[in-house]
């Protein structure tokens, strides 16, 4: 049928060329080259994370702690590449899986309470006390805690046993959720690939909505709130992601790279398949004197990258010492928002249906 479309193409100049685009192939690319491989990579990382957590919990030592921290960081990075896939199997009990693994800032007071009381089952604790941020707090400790002091809390602290148990439970919980994703996609993949149209719940709508929501998370939670934009301009450094590890900027860059790869349709192995960018190009969306919408988005991704290169870890410190650089990165994300959320969504016939979350 696509062939009929292209053969009936008329000849009134370039503006009139009808776009022939294989949406089925695009969805297949998203499923097979991007979503499933990235989820599998994340799942593998969570298996290792669970193993390292078990190893450290049974034998708390500085070398084991370092290994656990490295794996925590590696797995957190893998997660940044999949957090935009909160649909299909990504919805667990009505919530996107990101809520269970990356709600930050983590609630330190509650966690300290659980350690004292022994309520250390990650599956039954609230989202603000589980996932990567909670694990981070447990294995890095409050800012300024030395490795030796962290380990000491697991060997001689009053709540050493609960602490070790919670580390294991948190890592296992992340691992379980990752496994649910990988397992879920075995059956969901064909649904995803074969869902046509642009209505709410269709594949294209889910992709576009979640891509935008992912950008919203990056922009609002990782920059806007810490920058104090909702707070009269007073920076709130302790609201950043990766506060205790100081990995804030690098995690943000990972998420940025993931958003860009999704937009362009670039796979885990860097293969450049059909993506939203190609579809926009084909439709010649937003053509004006300066070019196409797709070009404007590509340029804006470049601007975002350039600005993010100036971010430094720990970004919580940079928020104090060099706020303008952080502000500049935020500004680029802000400028990207109307392009992806309004112009792209409109050009593709997709309604933005997610309820914004303003983080309070």
């Amino acid at each position, binding site marked *: 049928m696509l062939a009929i479309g292209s053969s009936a193409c008329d000849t009134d100049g370039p503006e009139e060329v009808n776009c022939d685009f294989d949406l089925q192939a695009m969805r297949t690319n998203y499923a097979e080259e991007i979503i499933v491989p990235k989820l599998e990579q994340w799942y593998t990382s969570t298996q290792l994370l669970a193993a390292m957590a078990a190893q450290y919990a049974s034998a708390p030592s500085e070398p084991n702690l370092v290994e656990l921290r490295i794996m925590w960081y590696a797995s957190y990075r893998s997660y940044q590449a999949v957090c935009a896939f909160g649909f299909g199997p990504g919805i667990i009990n009505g919530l996107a899986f990101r809520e269970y693994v990356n709600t930050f800032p983590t609630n330190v007071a509650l966690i300290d309470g659980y350690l004292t009381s022994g309520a250390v089952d990650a599956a039954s604790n609230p989202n603000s006390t589980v996932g990567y941020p909670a694990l981070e707090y447990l294995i890095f400790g409050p800012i300024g805690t030395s490795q030796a002091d962290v380990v000491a809390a697991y060997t001689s602290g009053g709540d050493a046993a609960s602490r070790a148990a919670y580390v294991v439970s948190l890592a296992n919980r992340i691992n379980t959720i990752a496994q649910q994703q990988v397992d879920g996609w075995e059956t969901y993949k064909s649904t995803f690939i074969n869902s046509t149209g642009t209505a709410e719940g269709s594949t294209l709508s889910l992709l576009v909505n979640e891509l935008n929501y992912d950008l919203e998370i990056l922009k609002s939670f990782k920059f806007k709130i810490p920058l104090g934009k909702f707070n009269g301009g007073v920076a709130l450094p302790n609201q950043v992601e990766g506060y205790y590890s100081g990995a804030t900027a690098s995690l943000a860059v990972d998420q940025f790279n993931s958003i860009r790869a999704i937009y362009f349709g670039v796979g885990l192995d860097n293969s450049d398949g059909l993506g939203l960018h190609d579809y926009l190009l084909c439709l010649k969306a937003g053509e*004006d004197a300066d070019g196409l919408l797709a070009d404007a988005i590509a340029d804006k991704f470049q601007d975002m990258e350039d600005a993010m290169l100036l971010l430094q870890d720990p970004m919580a410190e940079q928020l104090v010492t060099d706020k303008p650089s952080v502000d500049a990165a935020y500004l680029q994300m802000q400028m990207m928002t109307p392009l992806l959320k309004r112009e792209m969504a*409109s*050009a*593709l*016939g997709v309604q933005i249906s997610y309820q*914004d979350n303003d983080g309070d």
Partner: protein
Amino acid sequence: MMLTAWVKQASQHMNRQVDSAPLAVLRILFGVMMLLGTLRFMAYGWVNELYVLPKYHFTYFGFEWVKPFGETGMWLVFVAMALASAFIALGFLFRVSALVFFLLFTYVELIDVTNYLNHYYFISLCSFLLLLSPAGKTFSIDGKLFPNHNISTVPFWSIGMFRLQLGILYVFAGIAKLNYDWLILAQPLSIWFVSFREVTLVGWLFQLKETAYVFSWAGALYDLTIPFFLLWAPTRIWAYITVVGFHFITWLMFPIGMFPWVMMVFTWVFFPIAFHRKLVDAISARFLSVRNKVRAPRLSDEYSLKTSVSASLHPFILSLLVVFFAVQLFLPLRHFLYRGNLFWTEQGYRFSWRVMLMEKNGFAQFKVRDPETGKQWEIHNAHYLTPQQEKMMSTQPDLLLQFAHILDNEFQSIGVANPIVTADVQVSLNGRRSRPFINPNVDLSSIKDSWRPKTWILPYSSEL
């Protein structure tokens, strides 16, 4: 002399008595459609979503005093509207029911501008016309309860005014389509058709640019001519088939709710009296015993002047109708009083039958500054507004202004004595790239809304 003769003839034409069946059918159709519409509205949970949950409402100029009741109150309003609709259909306590429906429906629409639809405006107008008509006195429960008031003929104006109302709707909707984007660029249909590229069997059609042109031009032609083809007996049946086809297709393609079905049945008012009489007789035979049936004298064709001429239309009703329709002729044209691109500024846009003419998207970042402390906040719109409200607010200048005042009040209430509210707004229209919409340096909190031109809207430098 010519003129007086003409007026006299027109007046006779309008006042002559005709079979009441068309008005009875229209009343029943209106009541049934509104009953279904109201029940649908409640079933979809829109009462809470649109009138209970929002923290703020965007009001109409001059109607800022219209406020929603609480949850119980709003549900009662909708239940009352459903009852009034049923009573209208049955012709029971008709004037009161029609008045209640008109007031409640209009009240609900006035609560929040972001829910504005031309379709709702149309319903308000129709219910007002119905209220003026003698539709409740025939083929009705009232007619049985008060036999003295039961009538079998009605003055022709009470039917003709509905034809005029539909004619105004269609013709202005057609005129509104005579613009560069619609005719020359086939926008916004070209954008909207992107959604149908994979539809079974016909998807390939929507990949052709030509399809959007065919739909655009056919749509404009349809709106401009359909009332005339419906009026003219030789074309009427084909025109009605077109009505059904046109509205059915739009119903399939776009989320426009009940509107297509309302138009498919309201256009029956163009059908000859004999059709309505047969319908009424059939309903009588099916549902009512012959004994109770109101036997109407068989009147000749409505276009004949042989029928009896009754007393003239009451001057008050006549003046009311003249004003009513004159206002409707003025409203769609009032945009000529403003400079600039109508689609961009939307000054004089509503109440003009501009239906599905724009794909307009905006992104509004409001900022509030406290000049005393220098503190600055960036506003998260969703913290205050529903997604629907935010979407509408982001592209309509008067709503941007209202939101600025909402923020002004909010910040004053938390101790910022004199907040400065500005907004960086990017708007894209009919698939063009987005561009700055309003002056980002203007303190919107210091501007009062009025009918004067909004000079803080940035000019739209492009064709159209």
